[in-house]
């Protein structure tokens, strides 16, 4: 039991009032039984400040697979009752642990093919992914599929943990072969970094300590590598984008556009433009309850007060005046179908971008991506776990960027109008510019709505929001009746 002693809490626990150096979101994926739960359990055991009652539970356990020689670290990750009974992990689970300097968020996702959607949604939150393989079997078709999903949702760093090295006698040759296969695989994707590490999760080899069994391996151990990754980018990357969530007021003096900086940064005095209306102004004040800021950057939630009262509301994307997003009602994207009910061209759908909600007038599925060969197969259908290339037309324009150039404004959800379910998540591959006039579309204008349906609405903030809502719903009803609609309000 030597492997489980020698933990000095003082080294693990951050000082009580210390704020940690950012947050690293870590996705784990692999096939059932590759040892994912054991690996993460072991990482928690060795590197984080677990509570005594948790440690005691683990210490008392024993792992049958190793003839009881080690505790069962996977118990640290036990999940829902239903899953425990079935012995599988169906949903993504979130765990939090701190090392001495950093917060780690472990997003545990199931690997099975029928859970592609769970993995995609888990991966969308990750800064780095650990892909697990068994040293005895190496890279599998599934590994390729996982890499493809990671690439699609924008994960830039991947680690291949080659687990159960104890079962192949710590063979260097064995590892190098898998490493080479991995390199060949990752070359096909847009990862910024990809590294393979030989580990044994039960014994903790190369998990949080360098392994004595594999002197031939000179690279970093897992924790070492993780601690060196820069935490979620808070460096001001990309053009300034600020999707407006709501408008806050204080008497006549203050009208603040409330939101979170999605990308880039903003300084008092900067010139901004509301991409959709084209109106511009300068930033007068960056306000928070604590104090006014001189500069706000990616990830900060603030309220912007402008020098001119331009007419913007929720859904607007305030942008760098010299670098605007595309305003369009048509784009191409890659989507992951998340819901049991397959895509139905006659159903009503909405598009949700960061804070905007626009009715979709049509979705044309062009092809499905075969995740193993990465070939696109022509198809008009799309159902749960499929990854499709689709062309989407909206009832009115929205402000977006291609995902490759700016992730935060290049993502979207497709929402079922009737059930409200998030049926698909997607990334924008191509934002079509220019007018996409469908001459035959019915023009749902402000005048038409004011005449009857919206007669009761005035010009206040709430009324305008309600006006927008009714226009959206009307467009959907017309769409459901087979009438193409263009909203012009």
């Amino acid at each position, binding site marked *: 039991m030597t492997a489980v002693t020698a933990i000095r809490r003082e080294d693990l626990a951050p000082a*009580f009032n210390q704020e*940690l150096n*950012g947050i690293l979101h870590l996705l784990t994926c692999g096939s059932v039984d590759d040892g994912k739960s054991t690996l993460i359990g072991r990482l928690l055991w060795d590197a984080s400040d677990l509570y005594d009652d948790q440690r005691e539970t683990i210490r008392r356990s024993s792992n049958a697979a190793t003839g009881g020689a080690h505790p069962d670290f996977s118990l640290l990750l036990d999940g829902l009752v239903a899953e425990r009974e079935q012995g599988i992990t169906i949903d993504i689970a979130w765990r939090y642990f701190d090392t001495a300097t950093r917060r780690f968020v472990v997003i545990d996702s199931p690997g099975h093919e029928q859970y592609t959607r769970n993995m995609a949604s888990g991966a969308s939150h990750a800064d780095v992914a650990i892909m697990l393989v068994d040293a005895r079997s190496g890279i599998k078709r599934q590994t390729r599929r996982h890499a493809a999903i990671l690439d699609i949702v924008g994960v830039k760093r991947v680690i291949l943990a080659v687990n159960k090295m104890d079962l192949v006698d710590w063979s260097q040759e064995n590892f190098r072969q898998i490493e080479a296969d991995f390199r060949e695989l990752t070359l096909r994707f847009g990862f910024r970094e990809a590294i393979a590490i030989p580990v044994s999760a039960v014994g903790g080899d190369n998990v949080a300590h360098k392994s004595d069994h594999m002197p031939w391996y000179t690279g970093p151990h897992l924790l070492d590598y993780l601690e060196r990754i820069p*935490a979620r980018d808070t460096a001001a990357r990309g053009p300034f984008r600020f999707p407006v969530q709501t408008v806050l007021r204080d008497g006549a003096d203050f009208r603040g556009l409330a939101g979170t900086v999605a990308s880039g940064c903003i300084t008092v005095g900067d010139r901004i433009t509301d991409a959709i209306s084209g109106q511009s102004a300068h930033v007068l004040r960056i306000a928070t309850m604590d104090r006014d800021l001189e500069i706000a950057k990616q990830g900060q939630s603030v309220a912007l007060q402008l020098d001119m009262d331009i007419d913007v509301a929720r859904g607007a994307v305030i942008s760098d005046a010299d670098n605007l997003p595309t305003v369009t009602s048509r784009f191409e994207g890659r989507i992951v179908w*998340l819901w049991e009910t397959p895509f139905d061209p006659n159903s009503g759908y909405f598009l949700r971008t960061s*804070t905007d909600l626009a009715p979709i007038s049509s979705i044309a599925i062009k092809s499905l991506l075969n995740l193993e060969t990465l070939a696109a197969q022509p198809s008009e259908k799309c159902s749960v776990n499929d990854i499709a290339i689709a062309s989407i037309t909206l009832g009115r324009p929205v402000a977006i960027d291609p995902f490759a150039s700016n992730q935060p404004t290049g993502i979207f959800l497709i929402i079922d109008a009737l059930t409200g379910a*998030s049926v698909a*998540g997607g990334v924008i591959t191509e934002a079509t510019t220019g007018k996409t006039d469908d001459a035959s579309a019915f023009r749902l204008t402000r005048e038409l709505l004011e005449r009857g349906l919206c007669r009761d609405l005035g010009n206040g903030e709430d009324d305008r929001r309600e006006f927008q809502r009714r226009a959206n719903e009307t467009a959907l009803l017309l769409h459901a009746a087979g009438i193409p609609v263009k909203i012009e309000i």
Partner: protein
Amino acid sequence: MTAQLSHLDMLEAEAIHIFREAAAQFRRPVLMYSIGKDSTVLLHLARKAFWPQKPPFPLLHIDTTWKFRDMIAFRDKTVREFKLDLIVHTNEDGLKRGVNPYDYTPSVYTDVMKTQPLKQALDKYGFDAAFGGARRDEESSRAKERVFSFRSPGHRWDPRRQRPEMWNLLNGRLGPGETVRVFPLSNWTERDVWRYILREKLDVVPLYFAAQRPTIVRNGQLLVVDDDRLPLQPGEVPQMKSVRFRTLGCWPLTAAVLSTADDIESVVEETLGARTSERQGRLIDHDQAGAMERKKQEGYF
């Protein structure tokens, strides 16, 4: 001047974002206010999210009538100080039937005095969204919880039909009869809550600080006798001890810990160095394995 954001800055910004999204997407939200440290942080973040306006929703307190007196005093002071709207709701029927925390099992008591009245109140006022302070790190069944957690009619939670959440996109469109629980503190840990209270110099219920209080030991747990409603068993004589609480609930169900930490710094230091997880102090959770998950499915959260 702006160094990298610390993890608390990131968590704060995320919570503010969630509050604003929910307020914009739901018709009639409410904040479930349970007076403890998580509610204190939740309320503080709500104030930041909508400043300079007041939060555009009322607070809802489910009063079992068995809360510590200090909690009620703190609640009323907070509401006055920030000029908030407070709705207090009690299950009068349960009260009449004499359902109390010592004659009934914790699960029956919780159902009648907490779960039922919460549903009653949400239905009565037509709230379509309720903010709560639950965190994913609290318990394993919550590790899979969403930020926008949808409940089918009857407020039931179905772990198998949860909506996937991707990136930071929050979809608040409700299906027929659905309501939603919103958890802005999803990604916080207990330690973050305390660190944040310290950093923001937030006022908390004095019960979190050690003081001499009349205690008895029952079932191996240290209880503070807050009034004379709890029938003492033979041999139970309240003794003055220096104790404090890690979590707050109904007093006959909330265990105290021996402590001399009597200010926020020492409490935080003690908590962050704590060697057992906080839920050990909450007796209802020891009921059965999977108890929490079941309670959730029934609508407790």
